[in-house]
């Protein structure tokens, strides 16, 4: 087990190398010069050239990459001249809102989607099934920023139940924290919920036809227990895979939703940094996001073993 985790962590290295090269190249190939953005439109070409030299932007690309990569290996993600803090500090200070938002969105998606998927599977072909699946199609198709705007319009502007936008950290109290996050979490989690509900339905349909379900029925197990004890646990493996895979879209979606709801999270940090051509922050943040993506998938892979004894790695 420990060996397996170590192996998976080692496999992070090639992944991160590829990510670093791609991120680096994309940023440096996009037009826009950080030095002239920092100094503003009135700066003289000499001043800009000086700052470029200071930032190391005058060096050949491979050398810039080498400098940056050596920094990463040493644990130094770089320094943001705009925010006057290190990239790591900037990341940590923006992590809280994104983490809360992502967790809440995921929890919302799972709590909503799994029962819906199960009900749809049990009543396959019925009106209930069809309307749930129609709803999930809407969930997949409507982009999160649009859904976010609709939610704001309805619950914040019209009904005035919830705040329009903004963010209150957990230190202001759980209730206030959640109040500000409900709408963004729904906007962000809707697509997750739709994907999870669809996977739950198809996976449950498969499992409910399995022979061991018939065995359970022949033992006199009650229908509810058949669904939730015997079937759902078996159906959960593909559901878990979807949850893991869509975590990536969740982070990407967070960038959009944070902008719509004005939440000072990682997404907003990345978007603002892209606008400011703050190379160090973009590169460093995306590396950290990539690491957390891989880590989450590792956790999901370990959870498979908890659910399904057949994929347990070693028994003692």
């Amino acid at each position, binding site marked *: 087990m420990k060996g397996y985790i170590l192996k998976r962590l080692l496999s992070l290295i090639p992944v991160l190398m590829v990510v670093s090269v791609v991120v680096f190249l994309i940023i440096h190939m996009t037009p826009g010069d950080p030095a002239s953005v920092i100094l503003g439109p009135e700066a003289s070409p000499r001043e800009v050239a000086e700052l470029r030299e200071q930032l190391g932007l005058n060096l050949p690309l491979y050398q810039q990459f080498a400098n940056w990569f050596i920094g990463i290996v040493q644990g130094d993600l770089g320094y943001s001249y705009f925010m006057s803090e290190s990239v790591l500090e900037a990341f940590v200070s923006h992590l809280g809102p994104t983490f809360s938002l992502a967790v809440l969105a995921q929890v919302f998606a799972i709590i909503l989607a799994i029962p819906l998927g199960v009900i749809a599977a049990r009543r396959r072909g019925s009106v209930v099934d069809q309307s749930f699946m129609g709803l999930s199609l809407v969930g997949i198709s409507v982009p999160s920023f649009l859904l976010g705007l609709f939610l704001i319009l309805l619950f914040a502007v019209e009904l005035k139940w919830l705040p329009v936008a903004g963010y209150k950290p957990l230190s202001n109290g759980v209730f206030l924290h959640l109040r500000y996050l409900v709408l963004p979490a729904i906007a962000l989690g809707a697509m997750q919920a739709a994907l999870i509900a669809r996977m739950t339905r198809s996976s449950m349909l498969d499992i409910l036809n*399995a*022979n*061991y379900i*018939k*065995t*359970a*029925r*022949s*033992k*006199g*197990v*009650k*229908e509810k227990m058949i669904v939730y004890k*015997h079937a759902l*646990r*078996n159906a959960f493996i593909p559901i878990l895979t979807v949850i893991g895979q869509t975590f990536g879209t969740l982070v990407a979606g967070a960038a959009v939703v944070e902008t719509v709801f004005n939440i000072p999270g990682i997404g907003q940090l990345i978007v603002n940094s892209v606008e400011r051509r703050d190379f160090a922050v973009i590169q460093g943040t995306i590396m950290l996001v990539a690491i957390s993506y891989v880590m989450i998938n590792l956790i999901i892979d370990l959870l498979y073993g908890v*659910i*399904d*004894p*057949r994929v347990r790695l070693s028994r003692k």
Partner: protein
Amino acid sequence: MQEKLLELKNLKTHFQTERGVVTAVNGVSFTVHSGETVGVVGESGCGKSVTAESILRLLDEKSTRYEGEILYKGKNLLDFSISKMQEIRGNDISMIFQDPMSSLNPVYSVGNQIVESILLHQKCSKKEAYSRAIEMLRLTGIPSPEKRVHEYPHELSGGMRQRVMIAMALSCQPRLLIADEPTTALDVTTQAQILDLINELKLSYNMGTVMITHDLGVVAEVCTRVVVMYLGQVIEEANVEMLFKSPCHPYTRGLLKSIPKLTGDRLEKLHVIEGKVPTLHQVPKGCRFAPRCEFASQKCIEQMPELIEEESGHKVRCWHFKEIIGTGEGHYVNTSS
């Protein structure tokens, strides 16, 4: 006289399908007494498994309609509510399935699954249920059951899993056991062991058993009476000796002739029943076997024969069985085996 446990009276099972209603089981009647093993034999698709599952009403009730009577100790199971059926299932009537590889839930230990069955029907603590599960595993011949009880299905061989299924089915000491092709998925040596085990346990519990199979060897081994099914109907019913010595229906005779023999001319080709089983959507109007029967006459094609009692305890559904017996193609299989 042994107690009459199960009596099927003109059981019909209809399925609602996209292409209309099909009748998979069409007027099946037979009786099972305690301590007796009744074999239900036929090709794939003849309705034998549907008959078995109908007894416990395991088929999806939304698309299934039953007709006739399924009398268990004189009470019609078709009148029972679902929760009443759940009390019967696994407690009074248990079932073993064909494929032990897929009949156990892969994510729970075998002990957990046996215990579940015990706790559903018996008032006892979890600990007592576990020791009962271990005892059942030992009874079915599983070595070191204290260890095995915590293992998962994928850690056991096919034969072991079928033993677990049997342990589970018998954990509440049911009065009736329905075994739906319990040995089909197992290799030959294991088959014999499992059949012996079922036989032994049947005797010690004085259970009635319904043995669904397509294997006449299994029938000869364990059954006292045999029901031969074809396309949802019973076409012949007799006790084992009678059926093997003097089969009446041309289909039964064909089945018996198609068993490979160890003695005699090796070059002789195996008998084949010509044609295919028609689908349930295109059931022949007269005798259902007529299109494949070498003795079929105009009458067979037009009129459906009734199941009549030819002699005491031997029923057959054929217009011409008397003439067919007369052709002298009598003794096919040695019943002393």
